[in-house]
């Protein structure tokens, strides 16, 4: 983890030198504004229209947001974070646009600059506000549009811009590279856990992430151990590590590449590692990106392992010593993916006492650093305020440790815990399963 932390620190230092924003845009202000507007207009459709037209400005969404609850600052109200998008919709697309153009001013670049901290620093796209709205308004997908629009206007926070540049130039992020993954696979094989790399044909394809390689290699080894135990014909795509850590502008390109690689191998199942943001991207969004249903099934590894246990194909022993745990539902796997029961089935099979947090399952609080927020140095204090809510809920359970199925969440937990001098272990669910496989 220290290498990853050092890499993050270097990204943050570079960002600090730029004053927290990208200042080297080659485009004029008018061009940047036009690009942002074009992204918004290109992505808005009838579903967003129904949401934006229905908002009552009741403010209830604020009560769902960990950044508002952690600070009590009104500017963190979720629906306020998409205000420029709403303006563009109302002036350019809405049925009353003829009136809005007469009565309202267009968005400005200064306005988008002012919104940069609201959509990057104080939103992790966790989607909790989407559950609170009495009108059903799905705010988090519209935050995603805001982010892509700001990125088009060269308003990515410098750390994220640095990560995207690294992605483009090195093919990966966080300093992770293919060579490191190959070394990891060799070490794993030497330890008796073979990792079949880049087989030309396989039934099951596994992806990994830069964070796995750099900070949590045990999670990858544990996954390999389980897949070997199940005697699956599987392979790990060694050049896939860059595909999960992409900047948003590269997302579609990378998703297409992943799909092609899997189809070429004839695989019917894609397994995603303990990585949050890959899940909704590949499970739900990718079909839209490629324009047709996926010819394979996508599982999060926690979901897959839980199902295998539930169906009796994977046997586990009760964990020696047992003990109590609480489970942190990663937002992207849970609230954005519907994976709630399978990880809990695995925990029960391990004989662990599950003590749920007050907010768990669909209402679980984000770890505070999702959506790339954990990269942003200036957001550290804000991140910690959000994390304090999480700490309180974990402490209230009385559980001895936290299990989760997302290494980004683990990373944020560990960073937040270190900052708060909080000594609560946060561990990988898949590692626990792999450590207790029955013969």
């Amino acid at each position, binding site marked *: 983890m220290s290498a990853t932390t050092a890499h993050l620190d270097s990204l943050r230092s570079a960002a600090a030198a730029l004053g927290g924003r990208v200042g080297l845009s080659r485009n004029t202000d008018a061009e940047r504004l036009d690009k942002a507007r074009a992204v918004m207009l290109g992505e808005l459709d009838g579903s967003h229209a129904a949401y934006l037209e229905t908002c009552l*400005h009741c403010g209830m969404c604020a009560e769902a947001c960990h950044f508002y609850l952690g600070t009590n600052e009104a500017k963190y109200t979720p629906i*306020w974070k998409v205000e420029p998008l709403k303006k563009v919709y109302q002036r350019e697309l809405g049925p009353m646009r003829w009136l809005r153009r007469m009565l309202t001013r267009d968005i400005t670049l200064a306005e988008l600059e002012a919104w940069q901290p609201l959509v990057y620093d104080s939103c992790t796209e966790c989607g909790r506000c989407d559950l609170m709205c009495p*009108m*059903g308004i799905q705010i988090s997908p519209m935050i995603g549009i805001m982010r892509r629009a700001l990125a088009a206007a060269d308003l990515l926070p410098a750390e994220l811009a640095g990560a995207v540049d690294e992605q483009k130039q090195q093919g990966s992020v966080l300093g992770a590279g293919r060579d490191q993954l190959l070394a990891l696979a060799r070490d794993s094989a030497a330890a008796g856990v073979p990792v079949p790399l880049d087989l030309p044909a396989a039934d099951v394809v596994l992806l990994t992430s830069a964070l796995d390689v750099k900070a949590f290699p045990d999670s990858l080894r544990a996954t390999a151990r389980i897949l070997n135990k199940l005697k699956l014909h599987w392979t790990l795509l060694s050049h896939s590590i860059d595909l999960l850590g992409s900047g948003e502008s590269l997302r579609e390109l990378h998703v297409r590449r992943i799909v092609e690689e899997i189809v070429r191998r004839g695989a019917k199942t894609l397994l995603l590692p303990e990585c949050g943001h890959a899940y909704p991207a590949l499970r739900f969004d990718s079909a839209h990106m490629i324009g047709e249903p996926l010819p394979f099934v996508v599982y999060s590894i926690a979901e897959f392992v839980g199902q295998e246990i539930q169906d009796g194909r994977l046997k586990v022993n009760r964990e020696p010593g047992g003990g109590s745990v609480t489970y942190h539902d990663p937002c992207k796997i849970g609230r954005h*993916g519907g994976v709630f029961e399978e990880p809990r089935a695995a925990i029960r099979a391990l004989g662990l006492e599950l003590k749920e947090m007050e907010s768990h399952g669909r209402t679980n609080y984000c770890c505070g650093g999702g959506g790339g927020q954990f990269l942003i140095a200036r957001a550290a204090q804000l991140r910690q305020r959000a994390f304090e809510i999480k700490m309180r809920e974990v402490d209230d359970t009385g559980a001895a440790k936290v299990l989760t199925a997302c290494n980004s969440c683990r990373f944020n937990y560990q960073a937040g815990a270190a900052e708060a001098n909080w000594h609560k272990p946060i561990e990988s669910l898949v590692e626990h399963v792999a450590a207790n496989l029955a013969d």
Partner: protein
Amino acid sequence: MSILEFARGPAFQVALVVFAFGVCWRLAGIFLMYRRFDRSQPRQHALIAGGVRAIVMRSLPPHELEKKIVFQHVSGYAWHLAYFASLLFFAPHIPFFKQFLGFGWPTLSNTVALLSGAVALAILLALLWRRASHAVLRQISTLDDYLSIVLSILPLLTGFMTYARILPLGLRYENMLGLHLLSICALLVWFPFGKLMHLFLAFPARFQAGVLLKRKGVEA
């Protein structure tokens, strides 16, 4: 032409045309807009049922998340119910509806209907005060929010004044009644332009959210 004749005649006709055309225009503009087709494999099926369930569940307080929103939920439902009770079941209103629609219906006692109107008025005033004083609401509020509340209050206020024959500035009863009708005309004219349209949009928005979340296997 007296105020009452103007209100009953051209003003009301114009208001109705603006209301009907405006509502249709706005609904068509929203629902005829291009929509992306979701090609992902749903995690759960029965998507329509998911949408219908969202309509019902989002009408109820979201217990798991409810901490500080009890007032908003309760007051929201209370004023809507009280408002429509006084509008639809106050005896003096029925002849108007009968003239317009050709049929009438049973009414509440005047006391109950007036009490309903008073409850609606009190809550609307409280909501107006809250919107102006609560940090979050002040941040996100627009002219639409304030105008919609004020235009909802005016028919109640003028209605009470008409019924109780509170006639300021030496107004005659007929003129006060005319002002009451004009306040309704103003509400009808504003309706398609602002947030009052949620009367028609709330269920479709909830439905599509329910379908989306059902695809993902998440309870809406």
